[in-house]
């Protein structure tokens, strides 16, 4: 075991992690621990843009952006956080430009902007050009630019190190820690993939920026490595996860493959059509049509397919039509996604419509934080020294449905904020002693997995998990389908106890890590389904066919899910009898649901029409 000491440790080197690192490394001794080389992070796969009301091409302001974000999230957004994000968006874009990001330009040489789903002029009048972009590679440019600046600033990285545990001075998972009591994060335990060595990092402040968990689903735009690690580590250590039932399905995944085709395709004029060639979004969102928010478009597509108007031999997808656009325009604005269609489906988008179907894309929920990035351990108490930003976190600026481009914005605004908060805190705090053998749990877990006799393959269990999640917890959900998913997850958990790895080596053992990651996926799937079962309403990305209406009277609350020992109390913070009081027993522990109040400032919830 090797030990390190840093003022600030950042876990994850995607957009949020590196943006945090650029702030904290100026002020405090910082290490970034990443399971991938930084430039492999999935921020790089984001395509269409990053919204900010620069008003470079038409009238716009941050108040409209705030409103759109709140309405887009079906009013489950914390309005103070959304306002901060929309205001700070402007500087976040300028920051990136000054760091060197090669944005597309207007004829005057300013940053160009284009339309994107759900972003409108004057509270929904018409689509507005708000997304700042670099062709359809905006995420790639953000990731590269942030990494370039980390190189410039000599940020210290530990690449291909997997963080496998979070250390706190009070054990929230087993102890009954009273409200208001001080709890400190003190370090993390990491596994060096190259050598198989365990490293313990003691830190005054820790920032989680580990990204999403799309691999709980089979059809997903997410990378193989997006296995919900940070969320699951926090959850296992007794921290709540917020609003996990809200998962975004991006409308335009390449049919059958899930590879993302940016909403920018529709922002640039692309149209969705059913098998009859009808522009069906005119029926579902008469004002902004194909540029309605993603939850609405995804549901509309799935509905077209269910009602028999899907295209293709199995009538199981719809078509994204770009054929009326000039090839030169497509090449200039959408080069990558049109190449995906050519490479993976052999479709020429100049002349043929592209088969598309919704693909699991983004977790709106995550580790709860306040606007400074501090992690909450219930509805109000923070864990000192622990921060989170990006997809792993839930601030909540996305509510029940994130608007396109707002994730690239989120990682920049709240990555920066959490990096600053962490460094400021580290300057005033002292190191706290770690427990006697901080890596014991991780070592035991890895040894057990490695030495378990021949059993079932990890991949088979993972595939079964992904299949049940696709079948039962996707765009359309019912109590019945969710109960099916939950019973499958219980069964898979048992199978996971007996699964084994074939690679018994120490060095670069990816077989072993896939086994560890499957454990994270099972945790995240479980908490997603429990939250979805409890929320008997339809809102944003969570659609219950058995409860198709939004129910503000009872469910205008954030879900908070806690994993607790079987013997612990059945009431969690924010317990609301009849609505947020669900307890789900599992083998050896239980999931207890509570709630957290949604912060509302300027905007009264209204019916959501586009």
């Amino acid at each position: 075991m090797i030990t390190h000491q840093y003022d600030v440790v950042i876990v994850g080197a995607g957009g949020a992690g590196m943006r945090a690192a650029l702030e904290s490394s100026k002020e405090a001794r910082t290490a970034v621990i990443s399971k991938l080389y930084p430039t492999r992070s999935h921020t790089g796969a984001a395509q269409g843009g990053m919204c900010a009301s620069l008003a470079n091409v038409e009238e716009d302001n941050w108040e409209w952006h705030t409103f759109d974000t709140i309405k887009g999230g079906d009013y489950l957004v914390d309005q103070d956080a959304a306002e901060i994000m929309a205001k700070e968006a402007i500087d976040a874009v300028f920051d990136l430009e000054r760091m060197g990001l090669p944005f597309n330009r207007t004829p005057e040489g300013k940053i160009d902007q284009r339309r994107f789903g759900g972003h409108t002029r004057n509270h929904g009048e018409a689509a507005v050009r708000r997304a700042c972009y670099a062709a359809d590679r905006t995420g790639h440019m953000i990731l590269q630019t942030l990494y370039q600046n980390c190189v410039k600033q000599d940020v210290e990285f530990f690449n291909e190190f997997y963080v496998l545990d979070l250390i706190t001075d009070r054990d929230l998972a087993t102890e009954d820690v009273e409200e208001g009591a001080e709890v400190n994060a003190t370090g993390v335990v990491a596994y060096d993939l190259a050598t198989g060595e365990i490293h313990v990092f003691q830190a005054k402040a820790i920032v989680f920026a580990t990204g999403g968990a799309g691999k709980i689903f089979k059809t997903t735009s997410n990378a193989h490595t997006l296995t919900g690690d940070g969320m699951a580590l926090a959850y296992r250590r007794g921290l709540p996860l917020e609003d996990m039932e809200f998962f975004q399905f991006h409308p335009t995944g390449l049919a059958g493959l899930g590879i993302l085709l940016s909403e920018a395709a529709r922002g640039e004029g692309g149209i969705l059509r059913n098998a009859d060639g009808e522009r069906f979004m005119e029926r579902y969102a008469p004002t902004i049509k194909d540029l309605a928010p993603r939850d609405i478009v995804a549901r509309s597509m799935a509905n077209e397919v269910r009602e028999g108007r899907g295209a293709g031999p199995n009538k199981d997808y719809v078509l994204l039509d770009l054929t009326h656009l000039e090839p030169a325009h497509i090449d200039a604005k959408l080069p990558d996604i049109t190449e995906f269609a050519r490479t993976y489906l052999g479709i020429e988008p100049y002349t043929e419509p592209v088969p598309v179907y919704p693909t699991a894309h983004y977790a709106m929920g995550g580790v709860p934080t306040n606007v400074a990035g501090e992690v909450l351990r219930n509805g109000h108490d923070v864990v000192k020294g622990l921060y989170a930003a990006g997809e792993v976190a839930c601030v909540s600026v996305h509510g029940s449905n994130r608007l396109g481009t707002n994730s690239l914005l989120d990682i920049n605004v709240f990555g920066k904020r959490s990096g600053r908060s962490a460094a400021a805190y580290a300057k005033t705090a002292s190191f706290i002693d770690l427990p006697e053998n901080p890596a014991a749990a991780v070592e035991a877990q890895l040894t057990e997995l490695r030495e378990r006799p021949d059993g079932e393959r990890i991949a088979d269990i993972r595939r079964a998990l992904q299949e049940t999640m696709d079948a039962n917890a996707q765009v359309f959900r019912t109590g019945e389908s969710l109960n099916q998913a939950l019973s499958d997850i219980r069964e898979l958990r048992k199978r996971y106890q007996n699964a084994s790895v074939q690679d018994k080596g120490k060095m670069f053992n990816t077989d072993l890590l896939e086994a560890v990651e499957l454990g994270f996926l099972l945790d995240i799937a479980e908490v997603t389904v429990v939250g979805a079962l409890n929320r008997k309403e339809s809102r944003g990305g969570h659609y219950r066919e058995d409860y198709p209406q939004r129910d503000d009277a009872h469910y205008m609350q954030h879900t908070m899910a806690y994993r607790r020992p079987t013997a612990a109390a059945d009431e969690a913070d924010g317990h609301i009898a009849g609505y947020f009081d669900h307890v789900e027993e599992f083998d050896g522990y239980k999931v207890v649901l509570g709630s957290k109040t949604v912060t509302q400032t300027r905007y009264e919830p209204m019916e959501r029409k586009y």
Partner: protein
Amino acid sequence: MTAVMEKADAQPKAGEIPSFDVTIKVRRFNPEGDAAGESHWDEFRITAYGTDRVLDALHKIKWEHDGSLTFRRSCAHGVCGSDAMRINGRNRLACKTLLKDINPQRPITVEPIKGLPVVKDLVVDMEPFFASYREIMPFLITKGNEPTKERIQSAEQRERFDDTTKCILCAACTSSCPVFWTDGQYFGPAAIVNAHRFIFDSRDEGAQQRLEILNDKEGVWRCRTTFNCTEACPRGIEVTKAIQEVKRAMITRAF
């Protein structure tokens, strides 16, 4: 789809995805165990589908046959740069290469990229590659005060370096370069591409410094214009052209 493939499909039912069998030969290297340090070929026979990529085949091997097969991958659609490997003797991304496009009638060979130390199976040590990248100062260098808003850059100025902004640092170009194979000190195409990205950016003021660095004996002059790099680039960057433009800038000092 090739004629061979259509024959193998044998009239699938409507909507059914045609499948075919293919042999994958993988270069193995285990740093541990009885045969530590010796490399050998392993053959696997798998069933694949028309949309399957080499990465899908490798996953099928790892997930159904041999869990110890080791390779890097992440995004699986050609944007993260993790899975550059030598497939049928050519550098490509495993996630961007469809099996049906590389004649699955014959065994498909998969090896690690060349010129970097092999760590395990298809995984190489990327540190020397990233070290060269860091050396060319791959970041915007400016003097004077920062503007309060964005810097102004015309669409034409932006277009000037567009091609080289596409680089995903996968190392397919650098590890296809015969000069790099024999001289690990050579900066290699990827580092030069990333220098180009800034040298020709109208906002940047560090071109002189970067050109000094690349004027080194291990710099751009080692390039023998064999075009391997251009052919290898999965992003379609005209790598050799970019290197030539850097050479020209060094002589003319015009950029």
